[in-house]
């Protein structure tokens, strides 16, 4: 258990239905988040848990999710526990804009910028519903992804959104893209990636540190003023640095100035965060919340340490949501073109190779090994999603509902069939009722033919319909999502744009 760090009584955590988190902890009194209105209704939260490279290549390219046995952890009843009634199984969506991205690749090549590839097209389009624009060498401008519109609803949160990428990729074969377009699936806007951490200690430090410990009687502690002083000192430094930025900017050309502006943005964001902390910490709070102790510095990415590392990251996510430090948490467990991934008992770790079983004309034994490895991966992560659902169901909120009831969890993969790279069929599972706004227990499998694009013919329901459904349920005021306005004259601008919310899901 030594590599499990702080998770000594994890079992009581998992077992403790209805109880608060029972991790041994440093008692911490969180500064209260500003309360909206006087409603005592718990806040709404969004979780994206996403994989890449497809669910496998052992089924036919557009197979319904119903034919994929490895989703069984989502459906099975074990020891009397089933999560099925909390889920929606949604098949037959299409990342149709990936195809436009691919066409744009041809268009772009003819016009200079560098090309795209079979994995990149899915990465950059999946959550944005838009074609990423190439501007110069490798600088792909990914449009704002749907989760960030939701994050924008809560500007006062300590973290507008948080992100984890459990196993960032390697660059060995990545010629066409900058690494970041593989590692980061969620973007605040072009050139503005969201932060995706993979180190549990760093995640802990970023999210849970700098919060004053509570005194034993639960009142705000005296320690907080020292902490405020440190923040104030930081803020005074930022002011002085901004001066230097301004005087330097006047000597730079506009393209260089953009880089400097990004730096300034980063400094301003830190200022905003400090102002938030200064403004809230003195107010007494009833919303006491426990955090775990600081996890140990993680070992390298090895098979033997991976499950524990994964679990710590997942637990930190649940606690951050429970404590209402953020409303949006994105959790990538491996993205397109993974050169290295870990799953216990899996004989092969190069996910991308596995997703092309038996490439280079290997014998059947190798093809079988690859396919079986991919089955293990899909099953293992489906188990983890099941665990996440159960953990969140077991946490009770102020009004007696569960954390799961007030959340929407999205379990997806940017590809479906790993070998074909096609954009046709996608499967997504959701969990949670989002405070009663989303129905659960549904089985949806949309047929081909929802939309018909000139030159392309029939397509399935676009992914963006699901994203729009979720955004509207949170209260984002948008009537459509996706599509690519800057492709004005190419006939592609509407492709991938939402066609309407998924009514079946709306409560």
């Amino acid at each position, binding site marked *: 258990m030594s590599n499990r760090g702080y998770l000594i009584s994890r079992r009581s955590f998992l077992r403790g239905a209805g109880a608060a988190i029972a991790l041994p902890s440093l008692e911490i009194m969180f500064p209260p988040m500003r309360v909206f209105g006087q409603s005592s209704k718990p806040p709404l939260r969004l979780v994206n848990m996403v994989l890449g490279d497809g669910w496998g290549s052992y089924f036919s390219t557009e197979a319904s999710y119903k034919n994929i046995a490895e989703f069984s952890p989502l459906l099975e009843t074990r020891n009397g526990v089933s999560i099925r009634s909390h889920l929606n199984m949604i098949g037959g969506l299409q990342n149709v804009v990936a195809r436009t991205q691919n066409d744009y690749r*041809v268009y772009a090549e003819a016009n200079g910028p*560098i*090309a795209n590839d079979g994995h990149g097209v899915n990465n950059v389009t999946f959550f944005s519903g838009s074609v990423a624009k190439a501007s*110069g*060498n*490798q*600088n792909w401008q990914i449009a704002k992804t749907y989760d960030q519109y939701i994050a924008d609803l809560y500007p006062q949160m300590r973290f507008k959104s948080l992100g984890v990428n459990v196993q960032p990729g390697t*660059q*060995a*074969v*990545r*010629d066409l*893209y*900058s*690494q*970041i377009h593989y590692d980061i699936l969620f973007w*605040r806007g072009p*050139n503005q*990636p*969201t*932060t995706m951490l993979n*180190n549990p*200690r760093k995640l802990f430090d*970023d999210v849970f540190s700098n919060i004053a410990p509570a005194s034993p009687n639960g009142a705000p502690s005296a320690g907080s003023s020292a902490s405020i002083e440190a923040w104030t000192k930081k803020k005074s*430094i*930022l002011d*002085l*640095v901004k001066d*230097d*930025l301004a*005087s*330097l900017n006047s*000597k*730079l*050309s*506009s*393209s*260089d100035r953009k*880089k*400097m502006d*990004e*730096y300034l943005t*980063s*400094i301003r964001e*830190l200022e905003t*965060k400090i102002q938030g902390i200064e403004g809230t910490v003195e107010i007494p709070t009833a919303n006491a919340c426990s955090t775990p102790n600081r996890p140990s*510095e993680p070992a390298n990415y*090895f098979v033997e340490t991976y499950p524990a590392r994964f679990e710590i990251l997942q637990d930190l996510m649940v606690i951050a949501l429970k404590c209402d430090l953020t409303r949006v948490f994105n959790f990538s467990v491996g993205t397109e073109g993974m*050169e*290295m991934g870990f799953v216990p008992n899996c*004989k092969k*770790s*190069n996910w991308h*190779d596995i997703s092309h079983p038996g490439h*280079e*004309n*290997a*014998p059947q*034994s*190798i093809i079988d090994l690859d396919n079986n490895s991919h089955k293990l991966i899909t099953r293992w992560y489906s188990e983890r999603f099941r665990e996440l659902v159960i953990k969140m169901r077991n946490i009770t909120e102020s009004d007696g509902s569960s954390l799961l009831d007030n959340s929407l969890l999205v379990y997806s993969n940017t590809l479906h069939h790993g070998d074909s790279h096609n954009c046709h069929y996608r499967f997504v599972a959701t969990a949670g009722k989002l405070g009663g706004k989303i129905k659960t227990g549904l089985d949806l499998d949309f047929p081909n033919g929802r939309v018909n694009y000139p030159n392309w013919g029939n397509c399935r329901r676009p992914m963006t319909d699901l994203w729009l459904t979720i955004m509207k349920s949170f209260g984002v005021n948008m009537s459509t999502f996706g599509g690519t306005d800057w492709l004005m004259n190419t006939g592609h601008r509407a492709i991938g744009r939402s066609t309407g919310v998924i009514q079946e899901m709306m409560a």
Partner: protein
Amino acid sequence: MENGLSRILQSGTWSVLISSFLFLTACERRSTIGFGDGAIEGDSVSTSLQTSPQGRSSIRRLNNREFANSLTSLFGSAPTLSNSDLPTVGRNSKTNFDTDGSAQFLFGGDAESYLDVIQKSVNEAFARGLSSEWSCSQNSSTTISTTTPPAHITSHFDEDAPPAGSENPKANRDFLPTNGEILLAGDLTPHPVNEVIVYVKATPADGVFPHVVVKLDNQTIFNGMISSLTFTALRISLNQTFQPQSLSIRFDNNIYIAANNDRNLWVSSVELIERNQNEEVLSRSDCTAKVLSAFLKRAFRRPLTPSLLQKYRAIADAESSYEEGLKKAFTVALLSPNFMFIRSEDQGTSPGELYQLNDFELAERLAFMLWGSIPDTRLLDLAEEGRLSQADILRSEILRMKRDSRFKNGFIDGFVRSWLNLNELESAVRDDATLFPSNWRELIGDMQNETSLFLKYIADQDRPFNEILEADYSFLNSRLRTLYGMNSSGTATDFVKTPLPSQERRGLLTQASLMTVTGNGTELTNPIKRGYWLLKKVICKVPPPVPDEIPSLPKPGNGEFFSPKEVMALHSSSPSCAGCHMNMDPIGVGLENFDNMGRFRTHYPAVYLSQSIDASHSLFGSEFNGPTSLSRVIDENQYFGQCLTKHLTSYGIGRQIEEREERALKEILQNIYPKQSTIEDLLVEIAMSQLFNQHRMPKETL
């Protein structure tokens, strides 16, 4: 040509050669970075820049390596950083160099990460004692680091060695885990000494701190306990003046009880001071100004304008004490873009105009290329005098910088590791006893060491750089000798220059690091991937991206399969494949004798029916058979020198070299190739080239 393939080739596929020739043209045209031809054109080079516009290096942040090195350079000691302290900077995967700013990104929390690290480093630096460079005092002072010669640990005379594995038995120079003595010997200072400061920290055991005796020329000047857990200044005032020959620091009450109950001593540096009794006392404000003008000039590597100095003076003067004032000013300076960004202040007048970098910008570029750090005072002084760009001075400065210990960081840690993807070795190997030896974790470190030591040797010893391909030696420890099937003599810690088996290995291409990073991580090596990788890294003839429509090649019949060589024969039989594969495939074939971890083999593994390996092919019109003759063919065709120049230049100017700049690259080579040139020659030519020392105005106006 056994198995299924012979059947396919019987059906009149010999027109293959002609069609692949035709397709070569199309492929070459799409290729963005290859050298057009092997020959160097000597004429018309001088006018080339007028006709081929030069690219532009964009402004960029220091990468994490440079950031840490620069702090080390300013404060004399490395900041204590863990992997997660600094943000992900992002690197362009096309060049893979951390000096290429085109793919740098900033995340929301990055400013905070930088600020935290800077505050911590500044506090550490003040706790250790600022180097005399940032001292206001007019006293003479000499600081001697105990981590570099002439310091050495004479002995660990106490042999109560802790249990194996509990501590590193081999002490670092500045770390005494067991009883021992650090001795600084020889003429220590150019001046007399009447005060000594030793920077130390300690861990207690059983509630007792380390006991230390400090002697100057065998006279005890300190005898007592060290009780600070962080680095602190132990100030020893002397009642007489020495001109010391030696200084020793002895730790004599070591005990080891458990890993967390272990009495240890660290010593980072020693300062020998001659305190001038009649020193004129400067005011706090004057002292601040003196220190800041020196510090800011180094940190910003630019002449300091009076208004900027005034701003930082005001920052310092507003604080409660001299020390707090400097801390705050240093912190602001290090977070300032003046420190954080490498940039050129556009000096041209019209958009797109090429202009010469000024001497300060040249110093900056040189220092980050060769040292991965900010320029030192000497470079800045030369820049201030306007002399750095003079050819003879530039050359002698490059030689000086190459001999400096920081060169290892710029050349090996910065250039070589990214060029050859050495950091990715770990992801090429994993725990699977059927595929890799169980000590693979040690081996990948060994491989990185081998390649680093080898290339460091080529550079340090001024060996001709084509020896990189053709050397009949390498630097091996016992584990690598075993991996290479040689007599496993020696130890795991000593890397010894060792002759290579002449039929199996020669030069860089046959080193285990490269063969593992391209080894495909399975029992089936992939010669196409290997060939592609080497084309990119060593030959710089990069095929275009994989086409959208990959034609389907014949599949093997049931129970049959194609060996790698047969798959490649299929490539050359398909016109749309041949154009790109004709260079990629042969290189991979020539290295098929190396398995996924660079072990030499003559037969494929059992999944390939243990077929014998045929490593013969032809490349650029020359036949070869096996890895050693492949290396020879590549060397003889001169592509390697061109390619090395291209990567090194790209690293130095922090951007991809564009196709239209190939003439400028050839200009670099024309003075030295094909003579027996060294890395040093190459560095000098690069630094004097227009690609390196000119900058282009952006197309848009200010």
